[in-house]
């Protein structure tokens, strides 16, 4: 009896330890991802003047469109936060609902980004036009790819919460996905501050 009690206590300790080391590993991944984005930003900053007689940022960027994308990501950050708070107090259904709202906002952001890309390519401002546009599509496209993976992650987490409930591993996974999602919002601050706003100044 006491043996099995101490064994389950050891197991619980082991689970906590395992989840903490996963949080740390995921944090290391986020830091390396931040370095990748920083270097894409540096590449963009170096190449942003090289328009090769093609369109410049002022010609192809639409500030209202960017403000819309910014609002979507910012609101999705707080809806994700609300979802994780609901799971913390063991309210699985509202957590899934708020994750669903976050997913819709993320997908809406992707639709806006893809419509911007296809509009630019239709105008002859595709990635092959100039160094500036190559760097632009690489940086924004990498961020968009991350958002798409984040949306897939949200979908998976909605399924896990519905099937498994708010167990410790599920909460831990949602916490890491939240770190990823908030991290993408931080990268977007860099994108509108480095790419869009200076170009239309």
């Amino acid at each position, binding site marked *: 009896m006491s043996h099995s009690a101490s064994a389950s206590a050891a197991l619980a300790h082991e689970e906590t330890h395992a989840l903490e080391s996963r949080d*740390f590993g995921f*944090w*290391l991944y986020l*830091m*390396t991802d*931040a*370095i990748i984005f*920083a*270097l894409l*930003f*540096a*590449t963009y*900053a*170096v190449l942003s003047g090289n328009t090769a007689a093609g369109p410049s940022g002022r010609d192809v960027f639409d*500030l209202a469109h960017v*403000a819309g994308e*910014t609002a979507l990501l*910012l609101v999705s*950050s*707080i809806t994700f*936060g*609300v979802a994780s*708070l*609901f799971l*913390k*107090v063991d*309210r699985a259904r509202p957590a899934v609902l708020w994750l669903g709202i976050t997913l819709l906002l993320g997908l809406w952001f992707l639709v806006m980004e893809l419509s911007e890309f296809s509009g630019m390519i239709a105008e002859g401002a595709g990635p092959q036009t100039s160094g500036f546009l190559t760097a632009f599509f690489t940086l924004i496209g990498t961020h968009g790819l991350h958002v798409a993976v984040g949306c897939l992650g949200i979908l998976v987490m909605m399924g896990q919460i519905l099937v498994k409930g708010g167990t410790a591993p599920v909460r831990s996974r949602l916490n890491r996905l939240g*770190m990823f999602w*908030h*991290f993408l*919002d*931080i990268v977007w*601050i*860099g994108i*509108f*501050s*480095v790419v869009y*706003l*200076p170009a*239309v*100044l």
Partner: protein
Amino acid sequence: MEKVSLPGLQRYLTGFVLAVLLTAIPFAAVALQLLSSGAALALIAVCAVIQVIVHLYYFLHIDFKSTPTANMFFLIFAAILIFLMVGGSLWIMSDLHHRMM
């Protein structure tokens, strides 16, 4: 009612209001063209740095008390790497650009 059942919501809401303000200020400055381009760039940079810190604290819950030391160490390590690599790249490339003129 939800505020009672959701401890921690206040932190997200505070962060959200600050983030909206710090986003609206540079967008408004650019859209209304109130400043010279140098002053506007400085304003954009300052708002961006503050907003990154706001997001780290209010959304990612990074602070000097509860965040594990190792996580904080690698955050600062990454920041130094980014500063060296981005700053160094921009310095070298702008220097090269001036020499090629």
